[in-house]
């Protein structure tokens, strides 16, 4: 059943959303933003485990960098306080800069790795930093897959 999308053109004409997988947050290190690196079973036939884990780990590293409490963040905080936060009219916070990097990274990953496998990663910021949403696209021409039917039953449970 494994659908192979060799290029985006094929996807263009034949893809339909089959399922969504949600990677939840990992709170074992506190409230800092981390996502679980556990490989979801729905992706087993779709993508290699190492690729997936690398992506999530890189994202975790980015978020750790954004929330790091260290010299630079203190400097930024003190500077902002002394200027009554007016400095943010001209300047981005470090967090925002890192979020931009993350967005770019996710787009690259989507283009290079996920889209050819019929997957799409949504930036967690669009989901309130709760989950990494991975959409699984099916070739319309292929017969209904088990993941497709389970998604229907899941979504109608609302």
């Amino acid at each position, binding site marked *: 059943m494994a659908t192979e999308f060799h290029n*985006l053109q094929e*996807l*263009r*004409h034949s*893809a*339909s*959303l089959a*399922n*969504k997988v*949600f990677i939840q*947050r990992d*709170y*074992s*290190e*506190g*409230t800092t933003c981390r996502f679980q690196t556990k490989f979801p079973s729905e992706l087993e036939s779709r993508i290699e485990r190492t690729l997936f884990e690398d992506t999530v780990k890189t994202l975790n590293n980015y978020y750790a960098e*954004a*929330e790091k*409490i260290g010299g630079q963040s*203190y400097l*930024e*905080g*003190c500077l*902002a*306080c002394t200027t009554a*936060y*007016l400095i*943010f*009219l*001209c300047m*981005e*916070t470090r*967090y*925002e*800069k890192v*979020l931009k990097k993350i*967005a770019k990274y996710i*787009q690259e990953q*989507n283009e290079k790795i996920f*889209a050819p496998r*019929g997957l*799409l990663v949504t*930036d967690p*910021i*669009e*989901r*309130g*930093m*709760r*989950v990494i*949403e991975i*959409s699984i*696209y099916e070739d*319309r021409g292929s017969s209904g897959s088990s993941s497709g039917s389970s998604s*229907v039953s*899941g*979504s*109608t*449970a*609302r």
Partner: protein
Amino acid sequence: MHLGVSESMRECEYSQISTRSSTPMETPYKKRTPKRRKWESFPGRNKFYCNGRIMMAKQTGVFYLTLVLILVTCGLFFTFDCPFLAKQLTPIIPVIGGVLFLFVLGTLLRTSFSDPGVLPRASSDEAADLERQIDVANGSTGYRPPPRTKEVVINGQTVKLKYCFTCKIFRPPRASHCSLCDNCVERFDHHCPWVGNCVGRRNYRFFYMFILSLSFLTIFIFSFVITHIILLSHRRGFLEALKDTPASVLEVVVCFFSIWSIVGLSGFHTYLISSNQTTNEDIKGSWSSKRGKDNYNPYSHGNIFTNCCAALCGPLPPSLIDRRGFIQSDMPQLAPPTNGISMYGATQSQQSHMAAATPLLQQQSSEPVILMASPENGGALPGRTSLILGGPCTSLPLGLPTPPTSTPSLSCHEATDMLPMHGHSHTHNHSHPLQDPVAHHHFLTPEEVPSPPGMLPCGSPMGHSHTMQAGFYNPASQDSLHEDSVRGLVKLSSV
């Protein structure tokens, strides 16, 4: 029901559009569809002003009282006491007073107007996925199972994550659902009516700076008004002096009562910051050693200095709710088609994005801490408490440790002028609609994607144009990046 809702939503949207936008609704097939911002369909009980830049709780009466108190007292001080003091002592006094006053006002407005760290509600797909997982774990039953909790070990301490039935998420640690605002707030401290907002992760430092600066301001005004009266009474006698400056009497009274509550509150919050606890946790005694020998605070960094620095100078996360972003009904949903119309609910996009708006000014409260058990909207989750710092008209705490500020006193709030709103340059950037050509609409043709039956179509039907701002980071560009990716996968049809 859903289609009915969608119809009424559309009607609301149409009527709104007709007053705001110049785009007539007689041309529904045009690409240029009316844009609604996400704050307009925000599910919580918040009030928004200035087109989504300002966010406050529903009840703001006490906040205006706070503002009036500050403004009046400071106004009286600068008008009646400062001229005398500047002449008799030094002109630096009004200068320092002015600086303090501006700082107090700035932090007050910042606390009041900014997003405290509201967690957006789960999209329907996420909620469905969670439900499925819970059902699998429980074994499906016909009725609602008992309150759902997840346990997680953080730095050696077991912490229970509760499921929020309103927001349909498992709350992150330290988050709590505010029943007044009907939102889950990250690192929820308390809901402060004096500030007219919740105090949470994103505005706690402003709140603290507000009460700290207000303490200094009240002490400053109190001491100099007393000085003024004393100096006057040297010349003319005490009663004559009082008759000369009746305003000073009022100021002394206000400041006297405020000092007790506000200085006490500052002390309490200094303690909280140094031990990295929230008011919520302190009230419940979550990390108190009385609970058990091994009970300790897993979030503390170990020493007071690091805790303080982290709380006050740590990185400020951006807002997750993206109030000024435009609603886009372009997310494909996982549901079988019910009709041929591609109606895409915007609930997902509603909860997406961080706002580019920088946090605004803040404010403080100075009242006893009240613990209230408040039932949640969506379901019976027992034991949910929302922490409210009440004003003089609220009852006293229920035997829980409170700051010494238990006398319901009016806080001495002074203010003269408002600081300008910050962060507008950020928010402005994603308010420039770019009308994209047809190919940029990333929604699927009806036969490709099933339309969701249960979606609240906050977005307009058919096409939605979205802001595409290349080269500048904002939530809209997030969406456009995502959209570009989706475009790569999915056939875009022109409407």
